[in-house]
């Protein structure tokens, strides 16, 4: 039995905006950009509207994802882990198996198609973990676009393998030295590039954040995850999941899988944020699960930000470079307000333990980002019944995290290997 074909996306009343409230989800979202970008963002919004209204566009997108990226990705039953925990039956949606190794490819290929409709020849993107940059560089190579990736200098250092491949794919990678030198600063640099080069350049924002229409557009492309997953879990588990877990950095993979189940009232949706060192300013990147964030407007949209009383952003921290972001998808905040999505945090230490468990029990290596979702599922599964079903979104694979994981578990053989390599390299 082969996985179901994706042929249509569900009607999503979230995106039926009231007059004058386009791009708003409850009190969140909007579009706060310098005036110079008004025509560019309008052009993008109109183009995306047209794409969305055109059924052939979605079909083209699905076809690209099928032939280039191997969609549909499967849903895997974790029998060993389920038995070991003794509670709910745990299933995993395998975005790690997509081309370039994460769900980021869905968004990027979709925006690539939009970019072609816009007639633009150059793309820029911010990246944190490097997955989005890697995916964008890949898309640009495939679609014949020029490509420049902005990446915080801190992230360049901790995600070097991704930088290496981006460059080899023909992208220029710019290490951003301003601010905290992480994801948010890379976004600022992208906005700076965009206001200069909007004539030929599309900004491929990597997560469901930023000014309208990005939260909607990124969610739209990522919804392919949830649409597939709903059919698959029905087929594999024989019922809808009781809970769906996804990690939340900007919120794109979570929006992606949640959209498959938004209209199923019985399905609890759980967003898992970066708990880092635990609650308290500067030691995590949890906007909703902890109490350290407040409403603000930055980087083009209104949402909860980790900021101080002056509205200046706090330091963030996570073991996972891709979760280490100050803001969060406004749609998720709205759904959280409404009690539709529950938010939890997973600490670095919990992530380390869960990663080890999942590797040894099931032969999966989730990305550190995705492992946050595993942490919460593993914590909650034992108290659930054997007849209950959990679905985890494994947003990416952990290969890219080798340096971080080796550091985290203090792997001596790895360190010795790196020291020896350094000697080869003239250290």
């Amino acid at each position, binding site marked *: 039995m082969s996985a179901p074909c994706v042929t249509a996306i569900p009607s999503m009343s979230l995106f039926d905006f009231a007059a004058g409230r386009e791009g708003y989800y409850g009190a969140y979202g*909007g*579009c*706060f*950009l*310098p*005036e*110079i*970008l*008004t*025509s*560019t963002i309008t052009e993008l919004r109109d183009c995306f509207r047209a794409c969305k209204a055109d059924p052939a566009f979605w079909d083209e997108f699905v076809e690209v994802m099928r032939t280039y990226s191997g969609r549909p990705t499967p849903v895997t039953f974790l029998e060993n882990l389920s038995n070991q925990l003794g509670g709910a039956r745990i299933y995993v949606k395998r975005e790690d198996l997509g081309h370039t190794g994460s769900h980021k490819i869905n968004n990027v290929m979709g925006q690539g198609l939009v970019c072609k409709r816009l007639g633009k020849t150059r793309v820029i993107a911010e990246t944190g973990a490097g997955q989005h940059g890697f995916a964008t560089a890949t898309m640009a190579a495939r679609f014949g676009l020029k490509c420049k990736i902005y990446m915080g200098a801190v992230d360049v250092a901790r995600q070097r393998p991704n930088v290496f491949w981006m460059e080899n794919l023909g992208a220029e990678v710019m290490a951003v030295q*301003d*601010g905290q030198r992480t994801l*948010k600063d890379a*976004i*600022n640099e992208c*906005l*700076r590039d965009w*206001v*200069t*080069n*909007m*004539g030929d350049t599309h900004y491929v924002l990597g997560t469901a954040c930023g000014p309208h229409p990005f939260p909607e557009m990124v969610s739209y492309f990522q919804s392919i995850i949830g649409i597939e997953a709903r059919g698959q879990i029905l087929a594999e588990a024989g019922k809808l999941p009781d809970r769906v877990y996804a990690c939340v950095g900007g919120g794109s993979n979570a929006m992606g899988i949640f959209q498959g189940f938004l209209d199923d009232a019985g399905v609890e949706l759980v967003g898992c944020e970066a708990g880092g060192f635990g609650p308290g300013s500067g030691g995590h990147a949890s906007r909703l699960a902890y109490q350290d964030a*407040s*409403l*603000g*407007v*930055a*980087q*083009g949209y*209104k949402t909860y*930000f980790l*900021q101080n*009383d*002056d*509205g*200046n*952003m706090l330091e963030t921290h996570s073991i996972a470079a891709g979760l280490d972001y100050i803001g969060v998808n406004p749609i998720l905040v709205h759904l959280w307000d409404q009690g539709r999505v529950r938010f939890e945090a997973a600490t670095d230490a919990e992530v380390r333990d869960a990663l080890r468990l999942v590797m040894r029990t099931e032969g999966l290596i989730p990305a550190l980002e995705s492992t946050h979702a595993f942490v919460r599922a593993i914590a909650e599964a034992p108290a659930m019944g054997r007849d209950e079903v959990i679905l985890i979104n494994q947003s990416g694979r952990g290969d890219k995290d080798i340096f971080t994981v080796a550091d985290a578990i203090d792997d001596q053989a790895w360190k010795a290997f790196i020291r020896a390599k350094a000697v080869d390299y003239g250290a």
Partner: protein
Amino acid sequence: MALEPYLRARRAHKDLLLMTHVVCGYPSFEDNWRALEVMAEFDVDLVELQFPFSEPSADGPLFARANQRAIERGVHTRDCFAFMARAAARFPFKLLMMGYYNTVFKMGEAAFIEQLAAAGGTGFIVPDLPVEEAGELHRLAAAADLDPVILMTPTNTDARLARLGQAARGFVYAVARKGVTGTKTAMDEGLVGFIERCRRATDLPLGIGFGVSSRDDIDFLRGRADIAIIGTAALSAWEHGGAPAMQEFFAELLGRTQARGA
């Protein structure tokens, strides 16, 4: 006096007004004060006091770093207002708050307007607040006699410029080119055309900013615009050699080499 009549009055006996820029607390408030003294010396008409923000995505590298350093040095919004109040009491030019919307949003629009008025500001420039989102803030400003300065840009359609013109108060800040602050702008036919489009969209005085940095630029703008807006170039001079370098910069810019010895 409100901004527009003030500018018109100055413009009556000066062919090109001057607006300059200071990032509050960078390198320090003492340096800012000394810079304002230099600006006063050169008869500057209007100064933007930038309230530092951690995500200054509309600023170029020089201002971005200035914002960041100021925050690292512990500059808070209340310090900026206090500085504005001292400056307003001391200097002849008018002062505008310049900053990002989150600074306003976080303190609350009403509180912001109240404190800005109390500090003796005459208006504000918030480049990431589109007019669609500015309704309430502009109402509060009008009630407090403060002017929201609106930016017009070369990428705007005529219809959009008209819309911006309707919302603008005090003067219009015309952005001379695409991009962020701090890079060179070509003063050419394209700019002339853009100025004409702005004029058709507003009767307010017109300031030209982004990349105005040399005496040639000033000469080009004279007769075409009402205000030359000097940002990065002045800060760059200050970073290069403090007050003397800034004096030299303004003297050169304005063709008043004698001012140096003054």
